[in-house]
């Protein structure tokens, strides 16, 4: 046990003078951090401050240009993640690192496979995973394909991956961005338990109240370098935010209602089949057809979803991911076929193409910016054109109006504070938050009458968050109707005029945001509370 006392004396991780340059950016510059063993150490900072880069360095995925790393007092030099794994470090990445076409089990054991002779010993692996899952309260089915999992499940798989390797130092890069409060609480429960077992956790989040809740120490990074080390007991969220960005902690409060009585978007009886859209047979009404689908026990991704959004109204959709939000958005955008009616400003648009819908005034902030929002290998101005290719200022007859598009991109960069060297920069060179600001700016241009905003501030730092909220509020005041989908319940409650809860493809509750807490809302979302609250 003398080793134990020695270990407590020695820091679990010591980073000294870490510097890392990327083309055009210095991601880390002379970073110094000391992490005590058996603690949760939070790292906070703006988008692009260099947190992920630093963690990748610690995990051996990237090599620092300068600086030293000490783990448990020993100086180390990781060439690859396997070196880091061997030193007892595990990392849960900001973006999922999962092979979709593999089962949970395969994803977890990859690289550390139990063997029986030459074979992969799936039996042993399954037992081990089930044990670990039970011990840490991480429910997963080892034999499911990852592509069928929701984000919460995926996050658990990621954590199991790390635990499976017996890591003693855990790096969690924004693990809560996609979780609902209950799940966050569960995760924190797990982390506390791990901590009590002597594990060390390095935790990154933009949600400062979470950070204050879980962290034992906090390091603030700004523009690639460490600016402060603070004790969570002695600091407020407000102060922390100021340290990060030098500004006040924003709140998503909407002040007075701007809801009008003009309906902007009306959705009626929206229903989507799970195993491929089939046209309704002639002579059958949609309701009869859908009833029959239900009777046949067909899985419905959307089940008779109806709502109205008025001009100047923000309708928030709350739900655990995977309950039909994506499908709802895609049905409204015309990306996926569904039964039922969609009306925009009184016109039936259900048979329109995505392009025509966009042209008639629907803006779209997609949930996954890398997948649906950006051309990563294209310049910023080309990304400005994306989705607006048939409209001014991007279009000029059959031509793409490069000059006007560039000028308008400059405008967005200015108005939305996109940090970038210029409009010709490739989108992939921007940090995630800045990419998001560009998308928001793009979708707000051209004065849409209706906006779908899916997780508009996901992974965005507090400063940028405030800016995006301001933009949404201003547009709402000017009469914009917004369909807001967010996993950040504070944001949802703060911004929405009405909240609808989606559960298994159905709208199960309509709530008044003025008297609901995130905890109660979480109850509806997980199906723990049923029924509609009276206003």
């Amino acid at each position, binding site marked *: 046990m003398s080793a134990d006392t020695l270990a407590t004396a020695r820091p679990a991780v010591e980073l000294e003078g870490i510097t890392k340059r990327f083309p055009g950016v210095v991601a880390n510059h002379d970073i110094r951090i000391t992490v005590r063993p058996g603690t949760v150490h939070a790292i906070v900072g703006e988008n692009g401050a260099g947190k992920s880069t630093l963690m990748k360095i610690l995990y051996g995925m990237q090599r620092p240009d300068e600086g030293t790393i000490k783990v448990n007092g020993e100086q180390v030099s990781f060439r*690859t*993640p*396997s070196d880091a794994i061997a030193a007892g470090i595990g990392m849960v990445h900001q973006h999922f690192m999962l092979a979709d076409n*593999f089962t949970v089990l*395969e994803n977890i054991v990859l*690289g550390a*496979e139990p063997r029986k002779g030459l074979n992969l010993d799936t039996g042993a692996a399954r037992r081990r995973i089930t044990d670990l899952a039970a011990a840490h309260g991480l429910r997963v089915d080892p034999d499911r394909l990852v592509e069928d999992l929701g984000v919460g499940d995926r996050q658990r798989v990621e954590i199991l991956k790390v635990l499976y390797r017996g890591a003693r130092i855990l790096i969690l890069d924004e693990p809560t961005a996609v979780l609902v409060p209950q799940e966050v609480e569960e995760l924190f429960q797990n982390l506390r338990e791990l901590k009590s077992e002597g594990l060390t956790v390095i935790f990154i989040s933009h949600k400062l109240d979470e950070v204050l809740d879980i962290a034992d120490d906090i390091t603030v990074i700004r523009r690639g370098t460490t600016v402060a080390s603070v004790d969570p007991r002695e600091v407020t969220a407000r102060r922390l935010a100021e340290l990060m960005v030098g500004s006040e902690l924003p709140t998503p409060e909407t002040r007075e209602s701007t809801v009008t009585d003009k309906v902007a978007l009306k959705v009626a009886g929206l229903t989507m089949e799970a195993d491929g859209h089939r046209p309704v*047979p002639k002579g059958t009404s949609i309701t009869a057809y859908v009833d029959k689908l239900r009777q046949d026990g067909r899985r419905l991704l959307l089940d008779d979803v109806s709502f109205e959004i008025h001009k100047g109204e923000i309708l928030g959709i709350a739900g655990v991911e995977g309950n039909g939000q994506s499908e709802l958005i895609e049905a409204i955008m015309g990306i996926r076929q569904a039964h039922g009616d969609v009306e925009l400003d009184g016109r039936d648009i259900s048979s329109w193409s995505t392009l025509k819908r966009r042209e008639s005034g629907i803006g779209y902030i997609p949930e996954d910016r890398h997948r649906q929002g950006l051309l990563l290998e294209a310049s910023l101005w080309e990304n400005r054109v994306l989705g607006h290719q048939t409209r001014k200022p991007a279009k000029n007859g059959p031509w793409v109006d490069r000059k006007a598009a560039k000028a308008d991109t400059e405008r967005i960069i200015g108005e939305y504070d996109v940090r970038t060297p210029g409009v010709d920069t490739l989108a992939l060179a921007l940090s995630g938050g800045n990419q998001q600001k560009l998308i928001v700016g793009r979708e707000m241009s051209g004065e849409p009458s209706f906006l779908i905003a899916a997780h508009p501030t996901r992974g965005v730092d507090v400063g940028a968050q405030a800016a995006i909220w301001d933009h949404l509020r201003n547009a709402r005041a000017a009469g914009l109707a917004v369909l807001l989908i967010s996993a950040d319940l504070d944001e949802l409650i703060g911004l929405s005029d009405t909240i609808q809860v989606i559960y298994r493809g159905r709208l199960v509750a309509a709530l008044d945001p003025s008297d609901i807490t995130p905890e109660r809302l979480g109850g509806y979302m997980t199906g723990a509370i049923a029924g509609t609250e009276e206003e």
Partner: protein
Amino acid sequence: MTRVGKYHLALVAVAALLLLVSLVRVVTGHNDITSSGTFGAALTLAVPLALVGLGGLWAERAGVVNIGLEGMMVLGTWFAGWAGYQWGPVAALVAGLLGGALGGLLHAIATVSFGVDHIISGVAINLLGPGLTRFLSEVLYREGTAASAAGGAITTSPPLSSPVPEVSLPVLSDGPDLLGKLESTHWFLLSDVAGILRGLTHDVNVLVILAVLLLPLTFYVLWRTPFGLRLRSAGENPWAAESLGVSVYRIKYVAVMISGAFAGLGGTFLVFDATKYVEGQTGGRGFIGLAAMIFGNWRPGGLAAGAGLFGYADGLQLRSSNSGAFTSVFLFGAMILLIYLVLEARKLMSADLEARGVRQYTVMASATLGMIVLFWLWLTVDQMPSELVKMAPYLLTLIVLLVASQRLRPPKAAGVTYRRGEQH
């Protein structure tokens, strides 16, 4: 549960197909449709395709698109011929494997280490393979060399120094040859099965056995071992693999070299079949093997089916220019459509409301029309223009693809240039 269900369904389908084919054979009298000769030819033609397709599978499962299979196969043929005429078949086998692997190594260096676009590297190897082998022949086989004296020339190597062993199934397809006897009775179904079995077991080149074993072996290695898991992870999400300490570069190197070796093995098979290297003997098989792999949805079983289908059609085509056996394809098609129509009609009867629709009726009407046309063709045409017969294997592949609209699932990161520590 569903797996077993699928398996049974496949068995039933095969049985139904056999029944149908047998029926067609009896009606048309073209015994060659299921003769052991045809299936022997089909096997000979399918094996190199399957081998080269396996090559494609190994590479693409590890995330490297390999359009250079043709060039690697050419290297395989040349080296097999070169070693074979001097030291015999075993040496030929080794040299063919190494020759192909050499091409694979080149592809790996370019795509993995230098991050060159996979297609362009493959195309370059397709240029290099024939160029290099031609050059080697020009140097090593020109007149006055020992090889030339042994029967080599610039376009061919000398023959293998000893023959490649061939084996048959004792008693059943050799000696008493029970299957052969059964086949020659031309009984319904029984003779068909006998013919098929005998074709697949009579006088089979040892390399065929090896190749057939390699299919399940590939499945085992890729889907049942830790190495296979790592290899496939490099093709699905190399960054995830990297983050777990898998050496993606090394895996890719190994996979692409094995891929080349498989292509080389396919080339070696051709050399064994011809007993020597003949310039141009690969004849575009690298591409067709690749197609077979895609046809098979990047899986060994499907790949074997694709190669088998193509080999069968090609074999039948080569063997049928005189007999007109190919016209029975019309009857076969007509019968398939008939079965389809019966099934659809039953669906209509069952008063399923989904089933009725303009679309449904048009589909059925065109199927009926197609059936009538095919039937009429079968009755009237007794010899097709040879060019049309020649393109049958290709056409058949297309039609099968169209009908069996598959949900293809290529490895997600196939063709993606992977760089350590640089994921988006």
